[in-house]
């Protein structure tokens, strides 16, 4: 392998890592705040992608840079409504947490199949954020890859600032750290629950807009990403931000190199093997503290 290939693969791994990171942050946030694992987040990813596609190149033909903010806002609202309509009513039942996990799984099957019925099984092509390449002497880097890295990291930093500096962000952390304490200081818990799902929807939409130009869109596109993000979350140690960052980039880079040497078909087995090894030997993740 020459140096150029090595660097290109490394960059491909890094950019992929930002997508896993954003998806894992969505899962972690929802789990922390609502104590529920949201299987439907993969469908948030898929729906965000098909929405952006429909509004732009697919159906309506709107300017893609206009479509992006619309998609982000729409998926934020979609996440909030999903929580209010489906998760919140179940909270009052005994044993609700397990029920909710199964129901989000069911919803994700329904949402994905709705996509299949409406749009068919064929892949859709989503535009790059920027076409073309940056050229450095003999090296060329796709502009979209650079944008992926910049936006992915920027969104992650904004999310961290939001969680540590704003009233709402701190309230989300407070709810995840002590539910009763959060009630006692007068936090609106139901709003916080739907807010967490809304942010997961928003992060999924960013992730799909970054990744879909590379993988194309198909009805089950969200599942693959969801499962990989899940492994990232477990490897990083549930709720451990530093661990999640490291896990996201380590796994994505490993995925790209293994795809190069062994073939793309080995990506999923790699992730599942990591999951099994982690659960057996270090069930709290590499950096876990819960």
């Amino acid at each position, binding site marked *: 392998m020459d140096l150029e290939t090595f660097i290109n693969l490394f960059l491909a791994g890094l950019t992929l890592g930002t997508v896993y990171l954003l998806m894992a942050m969505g899962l972690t946030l929802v789990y922390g705040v609502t104590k529920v694992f949201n299987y439907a987040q993969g469908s948030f990813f898929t729906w965000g992608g098909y929405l952006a596609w429909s509004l732009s190149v697919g159906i309506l033909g709107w300017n893609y840079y206009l479509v992006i903010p619309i998609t982000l806002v729409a998926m934020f609202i979609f996440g909030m409504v999903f929580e209010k309509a489906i998760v919140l009513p179940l909270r009052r039942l005994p044993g609700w947490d397990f029920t909710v996990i199964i129901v989000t799984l069911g919803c994700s099957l329904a949402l994905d199949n709705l996509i299949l019925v409406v749009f068919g099984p064929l892949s859709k092509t989503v535009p790059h954020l920027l076409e073309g390449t940056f050229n450095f002497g003999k090296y060329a880097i796709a502009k979209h890859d650079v944008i992926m890295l910049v936006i992915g990291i920027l969104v992650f930093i904004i999310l961290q600032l939001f969680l540590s500096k704003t009233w709402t962000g701190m*309230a989300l952390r407070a709810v995840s750290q002590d539910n009763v*304490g959060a009630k006692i200081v007068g936090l609106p818990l139901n709003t916080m629950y739907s807010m967490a799902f809304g942010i997961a929807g928003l992060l999924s939409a960013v992730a799909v807009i970054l990744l879909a130009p590379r993988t194309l869109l198909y009805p089950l596109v969200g599942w693959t990403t969801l499962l990989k993000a899940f492994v990232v979350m477990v490897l990083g140690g549930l709720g451990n931000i530093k661990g999640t960052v490291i896990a996201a980039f380590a796994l994505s880079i490993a995925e790209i190199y293994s795809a190069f040497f062994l073939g793309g078909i080995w990506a999923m087995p790699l992730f599942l093997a990591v999951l099994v090894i982690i659960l057996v030997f270090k069930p709290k993740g590499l950096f876990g503290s819960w």
Partner: protein
Amino acid sequence: MLKVENINFLYGEVQVLTDVSINVEEGEFVAIFGPNGHGKSTLLKVICGLLKPVSGSIHYDGRVISRLSTQAIVDMGLVYIPEDRNLFPEMTVADNLRMGAYAKHARPKIKENLELVYQLFPKLKELNNRTASGLSGGEARMLAIGRGLMSNPKFLAIDEPSFGLAPNLRVDVFKSIEEIRKRGTSILLVEQSTTIASDYAHHIYVIEDGKIVFKGSKEEAYNNGKIRKIFLGL
């Protein structure tokens, strides 16, 4: 200011509170004594809206609050400080205090209340950047009370403020609570058995098996042989 009338509460089939009525006037310091597991904490949780009574009513500040959410009750200035503290373990002391001021009416007063908290508990200022999970029992207790004060309470319902504290700290905590009362906050607190709280209380209730078995002044409690022996430990 707070009027609890004939509250009944059940955990499943078990009756925890039976026809409990208590009354706290504005500016008063009222103490409820009783052994562990006899419904004291449950009563405070019902008052602050964490638990809903099966029957009976709670009036606060001229409104019926027995069906309101804890959030709505906090917004009215009735603040609960739990025995378990329920701090936010991975947040710093400063952030815990800040979250105490989340309620809309508390935010404009955040500076003034923070000064009050630091004045009452200077230790908290030193610990500002420490995460709550690393605090000692006494420090966590101070932080729980401090966080409650940040909600700008007109009424504080405090569960066992001296539980698990060294004797000298107990005196300090009650002095601070009395200081808070003097600044215009009504106090309702529950304790297992202590003489310190009764030094400050205008009225004393004794709860046994979820029923109020005694109501009166400190002197009356001291003169009542059974109450004196069992609950005041004298």
